[in-house]
């Protein structure tokens, strides 16, 4: 059985999500190949060749692949899929965008956001925002899978695969890239951070989020927010952790002024250690926190910052 993993990257850097997806692919069977599709992404292909367990890297380079738009990506991947038993991509906004097109072109079901590989044809995936887990078995000849990367370990980087150039089919020309507005930050990316500190409605204002940001900077942590805080305008949308935001599973998650709505828990309950700081001792967040501190956050958070030296 040979699997093809579609690399997540920005043409200069290979993202960890790729290594995690390789781990899921390796659980399916012997051979794992990686496709790097981009523009001027040679360095990314070289990096992908070092992922442990990868035996070959396919590198497709074309100007219209720069932003990995859905239409050219699905044309490329569908063509390559003929040689593979399974195609996997991380369940990022890029993977979620083109993978269902590939599945439809191949006339197979897509298995979305798997959290475990239970056998060559059997997978578990969350439904109802993680309030239930569904184990499914596919009868399709080919598997098209997106992978929830937070639940798979990163594959190492001691491999030495060959890199082979592949031609991309012509641009279908249905869509074109105009611009991008990416949040600039020196902090680690939410989904990749070792520590995440998040604020909820209890923060009270956008300005008050600064006390959390100060702790984040001392810990080298990413900053997150609950949907309530985002809806109230205290924090930007791309900080949102939860069912409708990002799913994170860091080593340490600190929830500040977050009550713990199911919506939010769905996005962080797989964190290794959870700390909750809330003045309401009945807040549901305490039912899943490893360490709970019932306190006024405006007193506790600055104290925490000071204690971290």
């Amino acid at each position: 059985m040979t699997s093809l993993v579609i690399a997540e990257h920005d043409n200069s850097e290979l993202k960890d999500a790729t290594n995690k997806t390789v781990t899921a692919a390796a659980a399916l069977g012997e051979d794992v190949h990686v496709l790097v599709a981009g523009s001027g992404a040679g360095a990314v292909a070289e990096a992908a060749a070092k992922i442990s367990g990868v035996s070959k890297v396919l590198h497709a380079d074309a100007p219209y692949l720069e932003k990995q738009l859905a239409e050219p990506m699905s044309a490329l991947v569908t063509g390559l899929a003929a040689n593979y038993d399974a195609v996997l991509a991380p369940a990022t906004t890029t993977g979620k965008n083109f993978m269902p097109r590939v599945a439809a072109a191949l006339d197979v079901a897509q298995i979305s956001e798997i959290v475990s590989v239970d056998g060559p044809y059997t997978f578990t995936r969350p439904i109802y925002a993680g309030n239930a887990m569904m184990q499914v078995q596919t009868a399709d000849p080919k598997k098209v899978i997106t992978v929830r990367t937070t639940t798979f370990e990163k594959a190492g980087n001691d491999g030495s695969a060959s890199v082979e150039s592949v031609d991309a089919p012509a641009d279908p020309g249905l869509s074109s890239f105009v611009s991008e507005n990416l949040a600039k930050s020196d902090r680690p990316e939410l989904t990749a951070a070792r520590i995440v500190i998040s604020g909820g409605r209890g923060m009270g204002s956008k300005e008050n989020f600064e006390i959390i940001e100060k702790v984040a900077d001392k810990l080298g942590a990413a900053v997150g927010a609950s949907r309530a805080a985002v809806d109230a305008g205290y924090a930007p949308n791309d900080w949102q952790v939860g069912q409708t935001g990002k799913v994170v599973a860091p080593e340490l998650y600190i929830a500040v002024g977050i009550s713990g709505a199911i919506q939010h828990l769905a996005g962080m309950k797989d964190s290794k250690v959870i700390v909750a700081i809330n003045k309401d001792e009945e807040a549901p967040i305490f039912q899943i926190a490893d360490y709970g501190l019932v306190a006024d956050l405006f007193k506790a958070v600055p104290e925490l910052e000071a204690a971290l030296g």
Partner: protein
Amino acid sequence: MKVLVPVKRVIDYNVKVRVKPDQSGVELANVKMSMNPFDEISVEEAVRMKEAGTASEVVVVSIGPQQAQETLRTALAMGADRGILVKTDDTVEPLAVAKILKGVVEAEGPEIVILGKQAIDDDSNQTGQMLAQLLGWSQGTFAFKLEKQDGELTCEREIDGGLQTIKLKLPAVITTDLRLNEPRYASLPNIMKAKKKPIDEKAPGDYGVDTAPRLKVLKVTEPPQRQAGIKVEDVAQLVDKLKNEAGVL
């Protein structure tokens, strides 16, 4: 320009879902059902296009049991013009849904199809993209802002780390994200009016689609539960525990 909006009947988002003891699925009996929240955003966007004069007609379609008619009535009360119910009591997977919708598109000839980015029951996030592929159309997923010019649609999208703007050739498939708009509540007069709007009834077979599932559900279980830990007295004790007990600082 006609706009087609598919809507799905799902467990209301406020209901805490319960897994059935026999692990065959989640409990649906006597549970409040509503329109998928992302589909409400799709209906709202289409109705706004009509109010702005960009769209001439808004057609809503639902694939599901007889009760899905209530979901269609909700959309009609929000301002859609007419409905199509593709009636089936079977579970229909995203690929089969996309195939049925392709048939509806071919019969209705819309220039834009607007769907929710995912349904909050199976969380698949597939149908819109699959439909776009089957039709050979462009797609703008996770839409944050839409603007139509001559023969083109500018779509601002929610992506990991920020926003991306793309231009789409029409016809196009759009999937909606949370911040695209805030859906209206239907007023009582509009709910009354909606009762008189037409709903056509069809079956998957009318579109020549086989809805047999490709995936076999082996079991549905509760997610692993976390145990509550301990309460600490103060910040000093918290930092001590994180350093010396959990070893994460």
